C-alpha cells in the first residue's frame, strides 16, 4: 500500500470516527498536544487500525511516534 493511500485511510477515520477537525491533520501535528488524542482515544485507534490494515499496533513500537507524519510512516512501513 502506498503512503498516500495510508494517509487517506488514516485521515478518514480520524475525522469520521475520532472526530478530529480535518484542518488539524498536518504532517507535523503532534498526536497528543496537537490532535488531543488521549490514551482512551488511542485504544479505539488500535481497534480501527487492526480492522483497516490487518495488524495490531504494539505500544513499544509507538514510542518514537509523536507526529501524525510519523504515524503515517509507521503504518506505511507495516503494510508495505
Amino acid at each position: 500500500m502506498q503512503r498516500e493511500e495510508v494517509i487517506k485511510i488514516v485521515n478518514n477515520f480520524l475525522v469520521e470516527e475520532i472526530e478530529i477537525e480535518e484542518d488539524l491533520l498536518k504532517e507535523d501535528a503532534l498526536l497528543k498536544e496537537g490532535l488531543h488524542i488521549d490514551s482512551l482515544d488511542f485504544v479505539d485507534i488500535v481497534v480501527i487500525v487492526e480492522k483497516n490494515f490487518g495488524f495490531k499496533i504494539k505500544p513499544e513500537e509507538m514510542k518514537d511516534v509523536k507526529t501524525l507524519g510519523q504515524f503515517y510512516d509507521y503504518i506505511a512501513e507495516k503494510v508495505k
Partner: protein
Amino acid sequence: MKRVVITGMGIYSCLGKNLEEVTKSLYAGKSGIGIDPMRLEYGYRSPLTGIVERPALKGLLDRRSRVCLAEEGEYAYMATAEAIRNAGIDLDYLEKNEVGIFYGNDSSAKAVIEAHTTAMQYKDTQMMGSGAIFQSMNSTVTMNLSTIFKLRGVNMTISAACASGSHAIGLGLMFIRNGLQDMVICGGAQETSYLSMGSFDGIGAFSVRVDDPTKASRPFDRDRDGLVPGGGAATVILEEYEHAVKRGAPILAEVAGYGFSSNGANISQPSDHGSAIAMERALADAGVQAKDIDYINAHATSTLQGDAFEAMALDHLFTPYHTPISSTKSMTGHECWMAGASEIVYSNLMMQNSFIAPNLNFENPDEYSKNLNIVNKTQEKNIDIYLSNSFGFGGTNSALVIKKIK
C-alpha cells in the same frame, strides 16, 4: 427537618421523548408497546416490548461522552437534560454549585455481551474498544451523567431491581432532608435492547399476547398473562424547599414521604405484607393517612402473582376510601429499573394537568382486584397528593408520597 421539592422533570420513554409528548400520550391512553423482531430471532417466548427510539446524540455530546454511554445512559442523558432545563439551571450553575446524583439502574447487558462477543472473535480484549468498560458497569448512568453535567455532590447508582428508580428518589429525599445536599438529580434508566431481557423472558414472566400488543399489558385484569418489558429514562431534580424559593425555581411538587421494606422471603414472589409496610411507612413519613390519598400509581406489572399481592395490600389499606388507582405500565410496559422514577414523572404530569391516566385493558377484575377503584378510562380529577409504589426481585419495596405545593 428540611422540606424537599421537585423543581425539574424530564422523560424519554415509549410514550414520548419529552414531557409534552408524554402528557398527551398519558391523557389519550396511548400504548407505547409493540413487537421487536430481533427478540423472535434471538429465541424469546415473547417479542413484546415498549418501543423506544434511540436518541441522535451527535451534535449534542462530544465523541468521548457518546462512546462511554450505554443505551440506557443515552436515555438518561436526554431525560436529565430536559429536567435541568426545566429546573432553570444550566452547566454553569452545575459547575459552580454542589449538586448530587442518585440514579436507578440495575443492568447494562448489551455492553457486556458485545464485549464478550468481541473477545471471543479476536481473542484480544483491547478490541473491545475504549467505551466498553464505561458502558458495562452497573453505575454507567451515574458515572457518565456526573461527568457530562460536571456534578460534584453525592454520586452513586442505586441497584434495587424494579424499585431502583423509586429508591433513588427516596435516598435523594433523605440526603436533602438531612442537610447533606441542597440539590440532587434523581431518576431511573432502563435498557430496551433484545440483549438485555432474554433471561427475564426465559423465566416465563412476559405476556405472549402477541396478536394485539396494545392489549398485552393488562394490570389487575382477570385475563392478564404476564408483563411486557419497556424502558427509557426519567429524571427529577430534587431540591431543598428554601433553596428552591430563594433561587426562584419552578416548584412542581413536594416529595413528602418515602417508605421502604424488604420481604425477607422468596426471590421472585412479592408480598402483600411487605408492600403494605412500605406504603404505611411512606404515609406516616408524609404525615398523612390513607384517606388523604387522591390517586395511587400502582406498581402492578400485569403478572398473575405480583398484581394479586399488590391488590391485596391496596384492598387492605385503601378500599374504604374508594381511592382511584391505575397502573401506567398498561401503556408503557414494565420500565423496570426506571419505573419508580418514570411513574413519579407520569403521576406529576397527571397532578399538574388534573387527570388520571387510564389503567388500559382492565376489563374484568379478579378476586383480588374486585374491590379496588381501578380507573380504566382517562378521568378528570384534581390530585393534591398521590402514592406511587415500586417493588422488585428479592423483595425490595419502595413507596413515595408526593404532594402538590399550595
